[in-house]
């Protein structure tokens, strides 16, 4: 880590002012930031701590739930409200990283951490994602864990464990920016360009709202990974059948959380139950349009498995029965 100045922002205005200044980075739990600084790929002159600014905790609001951006993954994992009304999220948080990291990592930081491409994370390699013109060493190199979709340019996958579940729960982001505050769907904020509501420079995530219509015990998160103790998922999926229009969102397969567009199929599954043939159609749909790289096509199988499991678990059907 290089030297930096450090300030713990006393209020949101101060944090917002800092967020737009060059050479300044914000710090929530600090796990990803310290990781990057230790890797030598982040060299801020000033770090501004958000711990006094970010709301933290899970609470009921109207019929829905609000989650402070400063809530730790451990708090999400343990929250009785989430375990009851949004089990997919509690599970996704509880499967992420290690117990110690979950005590430190925040909801906002988890969503906004930098991807885990090992080239990007190594100071030894130039890379398109951080210095334009650097090229992508992963393409010819090691890309087993890279994206199966939208991978023409940078193929690093979105790294957040909780993002698919949040999208399946139709989370809405509450953000503060230099120009004021706004509410925006999390899917757009994470994945779209600035014109379509995507993240704008200097914005701070304050929290997320989960609408009442999305809540209930018919949602689940499933992931596949090689090592059980802690490991980056090779594929994950979150399914939510609480909604009038059920949702299925994949993770670790694209540069953003990856919603599966299969509204009729999902409704049919909710009505008729997860019959084998319907499920097969669904997972085939989930994998449709994939453009795998030479070294990662095999992960399509895992994507299908994760999708199938998330659906079965959301509908409380034991996996062994199919």
């Amino acid at each position, binding site marked *: 880590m290089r030297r930096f100045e450090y300030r713990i922002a006393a209020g949101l205005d101060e944090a917002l002012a800092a967020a737009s200044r060059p050479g300044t980075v914000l710090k929530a739990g600090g796990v990803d930031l310290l990781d990057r600084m230790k890797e030598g790929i982040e060299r801020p002159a000033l770090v501004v701590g958000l711990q006094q600014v970010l709301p933290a905790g899970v609470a*009921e609001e109207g019929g829905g739930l609000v989650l402070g951006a400063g809530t730790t993954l451990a708090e999400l994992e343990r929250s009785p409200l989430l375990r009851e009304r949004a089990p997919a999220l509690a599970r996704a948080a509880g499967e992420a990283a290690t117990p110690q990291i979950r005590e430190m990592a925040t909801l906002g930081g988890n969503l906004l951490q930098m991807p885990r491409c090992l080239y990007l994370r190594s100071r030894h390699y130039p890379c398109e994602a951080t210095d334009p013109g650097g090229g992508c060493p992963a393409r010819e190199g090691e890309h087993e864990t890279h994206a199966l979709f939208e991978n023409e340019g940078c193929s690093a996958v979105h790294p957040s464990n909780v993002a698919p579940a949040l999208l399946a729960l139709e989370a809405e982001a509450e953000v503060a920016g230099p120009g004021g505050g706004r509410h925006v769907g999390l899917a757009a904020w994470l994945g779209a360009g600035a014109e379509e509501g995507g993240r704008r420079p200097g914005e701070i995530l304050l929290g997320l709202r989960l609408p009442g219509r999305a809540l209930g015990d018919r949602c689940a998160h499933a992931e596949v990974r090689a090592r059980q103790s*802690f490991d980056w998922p090779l594929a994950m999926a979150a399914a939510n059948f609480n909604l009038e229009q059920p949702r299925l969102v994949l993770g670790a397969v694209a540069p953003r959380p990856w919603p599966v567009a299969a509204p009729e199929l999902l409704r049919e599954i909710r009505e008729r139950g997860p019959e084998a043939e319907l499920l097969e159609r669904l997972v085939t749909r989930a994998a449709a349009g994939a453009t795998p790289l030479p070294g990662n096509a095999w992960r399509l199988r895992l994507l299908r498995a994760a999708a199938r499991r998330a659906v079965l678990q959301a509908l409380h059907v034991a996996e062994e029965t199919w």
Partner: protein
Amino acid sequence: MGVSRRDFLAGSAAAAAVPPFRSAPGPATEETSPVLGPGAAPLILRVDGKEIEVRAEPRTTLLEALRWQAGRSGVKQVCDRGACGACTVLLDGRPVVSCMTLAVDAAGHEVTTVHGLGTPEAPGRVQQAFIEHDAVQCGYCIPGFVTSIEAAIRRNPAADLEELKRAVAGNLCRCGTYNKVFEAALRASGHAVPAGFPELNAPACVENEAPRVDAPEKICGTAVYGADHTAPGLLFAAHVLCPWSSATLKSADLETVRRLPGVVEAEVEVGGRFEYCGAPAGHVCAESPAALRDALTALDLQWEPELVVNDPLGQHEEQFGPFPPPRESLTETEEGRRAEAALEDAAVVVEAAYATQIQNHNPLEPHGALVDPTVEPAEAWVSTQGTFTCTGLGRRLGKETVVRCEFVGGGFGSKFGPGREGALAAEIAARTGRPVRVFNDREAEQLDAGNRPGSLQWMRIGADAEGRLLGGQVYTAGIVGIGRRGGVSNPAWYDWGTIHRKHVDVRGHHSPPRAFRAPGRPQGTFACDSMMDELAEALGMDPIEIRLRNDPSEVRRAMYRTGAEAFGWEQRRPTGSQKGRLRRGMGVGVCDWGNAPGRCRVRVVARPDGSVDLYSGTQDIGQGQRTVIADLAARQLRISRERVRVHLGDSQLPNGPASGGSVTARSTAPAVMDACERLLEKFPVPLGRNGGDDAWEAACRDLPEEGLEASGRADERYWGTGGSEGVQFAEVEVDTETGVVRVLRVYALQACGLVVNRLAAENQVIGGVLQGISYALFEDRLADPVYGYQLNADLLHYKILGALDVPEITVHLWPGPEGAGVRSLGEPPTIPTSAAVGNAVANATGARVRSLPITPRRVLEALEEQA
């Protein structure tokens, strides 16, 4: 401002009965908060109930502050990246990794370290349970485990096994002590659990069942390892490493670096060409760890990498032609023709190619040394598995030097000699006259601090209809990088018939291999035991049956029968017969080990107060050397162990072997027995025939003040002869939809002659098994195929098995014959595991993975091929 913290909260505040948002005052609209740093400033931390003042820059981690300024060296630095849990502390009761926490952020919070949970004299509840269950080997990871369990039990005093396992899912143990940790954790949360396998193994345990003698210091964090030691005026140095397979160093900004405050030396070989990832290209020395890191960054190295062949198959092709070689090339010689002729009567001939990966040692305490010329005599605190392999440091320093290694955080074969780290420390110390510390960071540890060479193996073996092996061809290649000696023990263990064998070393561009726990054996055994199962399958024979017909070892033949029954082998289903998504399979693998004791001397002194001191310069790298000496001395002198003190890890003490080839206990034991016998002979008043503490105390009372002394050597009379046979059974569950393999249970039978200490012996076997599973399923040095940098040079992406990957393990210690003496135990139990796991996967699915590690990808590919 449209949205404020308050607006956000407004809606929820009323409804939020559970749980309320943590609120903090946040009224400021001006930029009023104070700026810290970038330089150091005083900081008050509350650590273990006391206020401690440190000096911290904003970038100083809590770990650094605790270790280097607050005297909390029980909090270990291993990965420095949040992945191993060795640095775990409680922050207001929550377990966090202190390496990813800024010290300034810990101010105002209550920090609890392992030191705050108890002391060796008065251990805390969790520490006490760890001690009783011998939940420790080298001990380097253990304070982190203790702290994580403490947090879990504070949260739920009656936590169950599942919860406790999850609580340590972020703690890595390289020695593989997990099962003992689980036992201890259960005990601490109020469950009654036996320590190890008293019923199975107590009969084999001739001497002691007490926990190891140094458990309290290690578990309470007061044991000082080489990497924990410090000295006034200490300098910090490190090598500069080439990240590429092959590259020329074009430039380095030495001028800037030399002008940086705190930089003492900076040298790099500009213009030099370096031929492997991890090759040393120079060094930097500075006044503090931070100044050292700043200097390394400021060097701004510019490399010109070159394209070379980085994959083993490609390297083999380049140097020896295609792998496997065409059969004609193997039958050219007389020997080759004879082996081929032996196959003429074969009922089956199986041909198969196997591959094993490069595995890095990754002891949790990194390689390194602290050389201090300012004391008399000079001292070298080295993390080594051979005290006397480091005495050359004195020559480099140009002065008499004592090597110290009282506690060593694992080595596994990679820590013979002081290494280039020790050499650098001594050289700078000689130049500057100041103490110098050189300990690798995890990247350096991964790039060039030891690996098990990879292998390519091809076998063509025939057997007759009764399953008797007739012979065949064995071709092996060691993947050695820039090193040598990639030997593979193939063929091994069985009577293979007429074999023609050829081995080549395939050179490349990674760091040289070093001895790794049972060098060559796990690689060879993976292929040999896989081949045995493939032959059995071809013959329609049970894997145990074919082994009984070809295994020359009487001990193992008995082990197959006993083990099969205890394990439930008869429930093994025919290979490939299962249809469901989750399939279970069983497999078996074997081992043996033999070695002659090395030279060793031990001194023993009986004191008038009835206590006894034993002196040996050897080292305890986690195997339990201290305990073996104490228990054997107590046995020979017929007194209780509490009277015995052991002194080791000091080159001024009597000479003994390095811990390699599993000979430390084997060599020390005869010397201890000899010394004790000589001591007894010297006693002025003969002790009664039965001995015992009272008789001993009475006999010692009249000894002179300096005590009564005797010396012993590894006398042949006391040698343990014979082998250390072993058989392991494994059961796995394979998820055929994802290719994920989980090992459910392992039954390990292991002979080791005289079992000096039951718990320590069980621990060695468990550790061997777990390293074997880690090798079988996870570990792999992942190199960029183009430029050859090891991309996973950390502990996040270089995967070592963790708590949730640990199966139930039964250790069955096999009693040696009367008077067997102490045999080897360090290496053998890690040999059979990967083969047993591989065979179990094949049994479950009918699809065999012939390359390690057995990853989801390889399982899916094997299933696809079979379909």
